[in-house]
């Protein structure tokens, strides 16, 4: 029994010690609380930011926009900087959750982010007042050349019986329905009940062929040859190809989602000035380059792209595709609470089938 107490004490002590680290005081210039996607920047850049500015960064991560939103809405943690996607930014603007940015504090953003990305941002942030583009890309099919015979150019391959138990689908409602809607030639922003019903039935029909519904794990499973085909964000494609040269990324001919993830500041951000300093720092060309090389998601930072040494990457069709050559590209729109509910309900029907 004595031994037991000793071990328990040891465990408690180590827990307390770990907890203690997390509570250390904020930096000499205060702190900034950042809520970003998992593995979505080079941790080294945070250390550099802290050293240069004396602002301590409290860093937290989310896996999908849908997981992020209720946490911010509930306000349990008052995040300063968040990095949501296009439609979610639109929703947050609609619900008055974001602060207007003071671009005088964001000189690097103005100077380095390409004009076309500001224009694209107007789809969800009409006056470019709330958001600074951080990453962009497409959603497409990643396939393993050794497991797939014919060339792939269509979403319909995800319904091919030959790949039963070899398909990885995205486990998030809008991405999954995007595939189902595009396959049938509809807009991925459809709120038409009949069209959504068709997309739902397509997804139900597909379910027996799907190996698993996953999010970030598509990457590791494809690298590990677990599956032949996976739906994936273009930003992961370069990384996966680096790890497994048999993998190939393609944008399906029916069209797909072109997305932007942008930095925004919350309405009641306790550290708004620090938040702007953080966003500005992330737009510095050398920092944007470090992040691009670490996460391999396409950067809208033109100055950083110029600094990429590897020409294959700088002109890569995957990282920087010429979007004009693809038809039916769209960006997600926020569809309002009723449509959100309808999507969630239909998705639950798919998942419980």
């Amino acid at each position, binding site marked *: 029994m004595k031994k037991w107490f000793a071990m328990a004490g040891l465990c408690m002590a180590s827990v307390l010690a770990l907890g203690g680290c997390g509570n250390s005081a904020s930096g000499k210039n205060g702190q900034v609380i950042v809520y970003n996607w998992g593995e979505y920047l080079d941790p080294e850049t945070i250390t550099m930011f802290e050293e240069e500015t004396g602002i301590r960064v409290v860093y937290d991560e989310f896996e999908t926009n849908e997981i992020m939103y209720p946490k911010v809405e509930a306000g349990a943690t008052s995040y300063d900087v968040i990095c949501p996607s296009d439609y979610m930014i639109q929703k947050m603007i609609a619900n008055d959750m974001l602060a207007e940015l003071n671009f005088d504090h964001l000189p690097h953003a103005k100077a380095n982010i390409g004009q076309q990305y500001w224009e694209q941002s107007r789809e969800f942030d009409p006056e470019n007042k709330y958001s600074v583009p951080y990453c962009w890309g497409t959603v497409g099919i990643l396939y393993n050349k050794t497991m797939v015979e014919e060339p792939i150019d269509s979403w319909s391959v995800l319904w091919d019986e030959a790949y039963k138990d070899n398909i990885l689908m995205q486990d998030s409602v809008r991405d999954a329905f995007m595939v189902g809607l595009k396959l049938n030639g509809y807009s991925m922003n459809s709120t038409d009940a009949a069209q959504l019903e068709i997309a739902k039935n397509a997804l139900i029909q597909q*379910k027996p062929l799907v*190996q698993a519904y*996953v999010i970030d794990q598509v990457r590791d499973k494809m690298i590990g*040859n*677990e599956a032949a085909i996976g739906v994936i964000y273009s930003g992961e494609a370069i990384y996966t190809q680096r790890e497994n040269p048999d993998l190939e990324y393609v944008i399906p001919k029916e069209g797909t989602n072109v997305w932007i993830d942008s930095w925004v500041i919350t309405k009641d951000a306790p550290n708004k000035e620090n938040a702007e300093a953080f966003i500005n720092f992330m737009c510095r060309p050398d920092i944007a380059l470090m992040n691009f090389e670490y996460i391999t998601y396409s950067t809208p930072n033109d100055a950083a792209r110029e600094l990429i040494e590897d020409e294959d990457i700088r002109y890569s069709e995957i990282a920087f595709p010429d979007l004009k050559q693809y038809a039916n590209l769209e960006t997600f729109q926020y569809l309002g609470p009723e449509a*959100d509910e309808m999507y*969630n309900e239909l998705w639950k029907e798919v*998942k419980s089938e």
Partner: protein
Amino acid sequence: MKNHKLSRQMMAAPYTAWIILFIVVPLGMVFYYGLTDKTGAFTLENVLDIMSAEHAKALWYALGLSLISTLICFLLAYPLAMILADREGNAKLNRHSLILLIFILPMWMNFLLRTLAWQTLLEKTGVINRILEFFHLPSLQIINTPYAIILGMVYNFLPFMVLPIYNALVKIDPNVISAAQDLGANRLQTFLRITFPLSLGGVISGITMVFIPALTTFVISKLLGGSKILLIGNVIEEEFTLASNWHLGSGLSIVLMLFIILNMVVSAIFDKEGEGNML
């Protein structure tokens, strides 16, 4: 006398505060959200939504899988608990503390990590299949199926079945067993009529402690079921995290609570000795 009473109340204050803050208040919130709609008006709709096709199916699935897991846990745990409680065998080798240690050791690791490890083991190109392949044996294809979920449940919750049964068995007075044998009972009769009935309290606690976490889990089905099988725990989790419909999530939680309370009532009737309380 009065002072003594006061100091006892003072000592209890932290626990009272704890219970109110972390048990009573959250439960109250669950009931508040579960019994109101988005406008704040009283409704039973969230609770009754369990009848809808998707929710009923998720509940049946969860009940089925957790019952099977509980049964498997029981069948595995009872013989083990008997080995642990066997005094004569243990005296020589001190083996019982070793087995107990082996059983408790993995519980020091994070539950999520252990479940993720099973994913790596069971995958198509995972560790187990590579070993099978090396020996030219047929591969094991259970990842992303209900079998993998049952495996995950049994693996994670088995210690919660072993320990209460073990506790019940060691408490049995050896003289009772000797008396049975003196009176001519054979080993099977002794087991069926003396040992097993006396350990029933532990069995019931074990069943409760396996069945409830298995019924409510959402992590195991997500990680080992490939998100293809929706259990009631997954439905509730997604109502909170994805759909941000706290009302429906709470309403379904209330239904789940009924099953848990039912289970606890049953165990309270049998487990008067409180064997399960050691954990």
